[in-house]
């Protein structure tokens, strides 16, 4: 059977499963819609969190990014997993004990202030929309590449599916769909990774193959060989970086703090029954994430080795079929600058003849490893699962922020349970439409603003929650001053280097050599220091707030 038929079958089957789950798990109350009734098992919640978290970018782009960045790519691996340690130790159990529905709920109640609540609503909506536009675009691209339909039609297809289970099922529908999506995406990621590991090193476990000898008889270790290939072409050695240490430090920290502060991830820990379950589900979540995140750098190294050996200095006329196939999609471009008929792939831009899109490292893997057609279909279904699961989680955060935090808790407090549920559904539907619009007409700055999402979460939500739990003396004046300053500082730095003066976006002009990607860490530090200082010179929080802090610190009163 052809690749296209396999893709239709596998994608069709996976969509049928999602719709089936949507119908089976319709939400009947706001509690079911917001937090799946609070009765999800830690194991299922861990899986759902993993799918929620791993987006189109993790599935399609991350291995490619690492492949081209080598050691420098570690910032993503550590940043996007290390945040879970913070979530487990500093946030999840306490927020579970707090026992309401959203981040703005916590910030509004803890800081006894509507202004603080609205700041959190704004941050949650902004962060989620930033993120979701990329997911819908990802859905469209997968459709167009594997099924030969227009990106627009692909996006609309994705919208219909998400609409179905997010609007009908709310958190309940999303949770059980995400469990299914995790299974599909991890299977789709591992199958080609295992085959390519065997192909390069004879070791079926990619995490070990990564540190094994290549099986070409030379007895060289893969990474040594790759260092050699890289340097011969003028690139930095694969295992050492080119970024400044302070920048690597700050980017990693910003991604960790941002991960722990992302509303759609935090809210998942409201869905389990007990504090103990919240702790355990972070463990399951990271375990399921780690399966992909420890495989990705191995795939990156295999793919780069393969790529260089296949194309470098080889005659273009004899290039393997996959090179020609992906050339048609524009992801590989070849221009024979010196007219020798060979492909020169080197660091020097003037002499380089081959432009390779990073996404190819995962997407072309099955073809490079000469795997059967069904594996290609599987990759498409896996990439769609990754994009849709993340999109749904984000859209739910937007709809909850509007129906619960903005309407019920602020503008229209006499809203009935039924009215709130209807508002949540309408908001979810509206959010799907907006996300779809951005998917079809992507603003040019989508890639630029991803750093934004993490920077804002790191410099506002994360410090405000942690200080709310661990510093009983923290009051509304301190928290608001900290959030506003952290947000303003981070926004100003990113906007300046990304939009106002992009020519200056180089290491010579950055403060202390910190790139806009890493500035969220600076924002978080400023937030924490200022909050602390302001809170000590302004009145103590009211007694009932102090009692609430005491209450969330223990699972149950002795």
């Amino acid at each position, binding site marked *: 059977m052809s690749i296209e038929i396999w893709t239709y079958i596998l994608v069709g089957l996976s969509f049928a499963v999602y719709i089936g789950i949507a119908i089976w798990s319709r939400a009947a109350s706001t509690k079911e819609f917001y937090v799946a009734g609070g009765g999800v098992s830690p194991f299922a919640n861990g899986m759902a969190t993993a799918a929620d978290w791993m987006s189109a970018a993790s599935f399609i782009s991350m291995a490619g990014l690492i492949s081209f960045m080598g*050691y420098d790519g570690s910032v993503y691996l550590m940043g996007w997993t290390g945040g879970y340690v913070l979530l487990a130790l500093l946030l999840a159990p306490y927020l579970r004990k707090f026992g309401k529905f959203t981040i703005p709920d916590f910030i509004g109640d803890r800081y006894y202030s509507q202004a603080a609540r609205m700041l959190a609503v704004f941050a949650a909506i902004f962060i989620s929309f930033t993120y979701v536009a990329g997911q819908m675009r990802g859905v469209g691209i997968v459709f167009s590449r594997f099924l030969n339909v227009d990106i627009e039609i692909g996006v609309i297809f994705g919208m219909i599916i998400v609409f179905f289970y997010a609007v009908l099922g709310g958190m309940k529908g999303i949770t059980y769909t995400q469990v299914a999506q995790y299974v599909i995406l991890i299977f789709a990621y591992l199958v080609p990774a295992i085959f390519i590991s065997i192909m390069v090193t004879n070791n079926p476990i990619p995490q070990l193959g990564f540190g094994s000898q290549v099986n070409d008889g030379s007895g060289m270790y893969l990474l040594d060989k790759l260092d050699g290939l890289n340097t011969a072409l003028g690139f930095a050695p694969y295992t050492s970086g080119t970024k400044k240490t302070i920048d690597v430090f700050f980017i*990693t920290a910003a991604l960790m703090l941002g991960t722990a502060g992302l509303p759609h991830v935090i809210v998942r820990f409201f869905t389990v029954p007990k504090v*103990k379950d919240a702790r355990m589900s972070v463990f399951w979540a*990271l375990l399921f994430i780690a399966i992909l995140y420890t495989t990705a750098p191995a795939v990156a190294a295999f793919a780069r080795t393969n790529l260089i050996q296949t194309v470098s200095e080889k005659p273009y006329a004899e290039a393997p079929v996959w090179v020609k196939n992906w050339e048609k999609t524009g992801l590989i471009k070849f221009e024979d600058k010196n007219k020798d008929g060979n492909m020169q792939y080197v660091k020097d831009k003037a002499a380089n003849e081959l432009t390779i899109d990073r996404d190819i490292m995962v997407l072309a893997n099955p073809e490079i490893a000469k795997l059967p057609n069904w594996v290609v279909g599987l990759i498409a279904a896996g990439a769609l699962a990754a994009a849709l699961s993340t999109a749904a989680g984000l859209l739910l955060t937007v709809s909850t922020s509007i129906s619960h935090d903005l309407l019920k808790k602020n503008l229209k407090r006499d809203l009935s349970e039924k009215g709130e549920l209807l508002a949540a559904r309408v908001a979810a539907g509206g959010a799907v439409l907006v996300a779809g619009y951005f998917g079809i007409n992507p603003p040019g700055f989508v890639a630029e603003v991803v750093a934004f999402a993490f920077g804002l979460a790191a410099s506002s939500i994360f410090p405000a929650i942690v200080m709310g739990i661990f510093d009983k003396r923290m009051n509304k004046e301190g928290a608001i001053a900290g959030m506003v300053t952290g947000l303003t500082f981070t926004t100003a730095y990113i906007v300046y280097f990304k939009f106002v003066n992009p020519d200056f976006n180089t290491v010579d002009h950055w403060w202390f050599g910190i790139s806009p990607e890493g500035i969220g860490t600076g924002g978080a530090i400023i937030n924490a220091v200022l909050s602390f200082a302001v809170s000590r010179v302004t009145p103590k929080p009211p007694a009932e707030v102090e009692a609430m802090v005491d209450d969330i610190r223990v*699972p149950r009163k002795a």
Partner: protein
Amino acid sequence: MSNDKQTNLYWKKNILYLAVLLGVWFIVSYGFSIVFANSLNSVKIGGFKLGFWFAQQGSIYVYLVLIAVYVFLMNRLDKEFDVEEK
């Protein structure tokens, strides 16, 4: 002992666990994998340079172990102070 004292002690122990676990988290992420990565790279385990291995594999395994230890310690502490949810 009064309830308040008990709760205080529970919280102090919790903070102690956090300090130790986050200390390890910090040293592995920012020490082994970033600041000292170059020096650790002179040690090789199989085909991996150690600093590089920590940055792309080891740190993630350490995170998992840290969370597992935390879950174990806190469950034990909850039982000890009789504050686990029924």
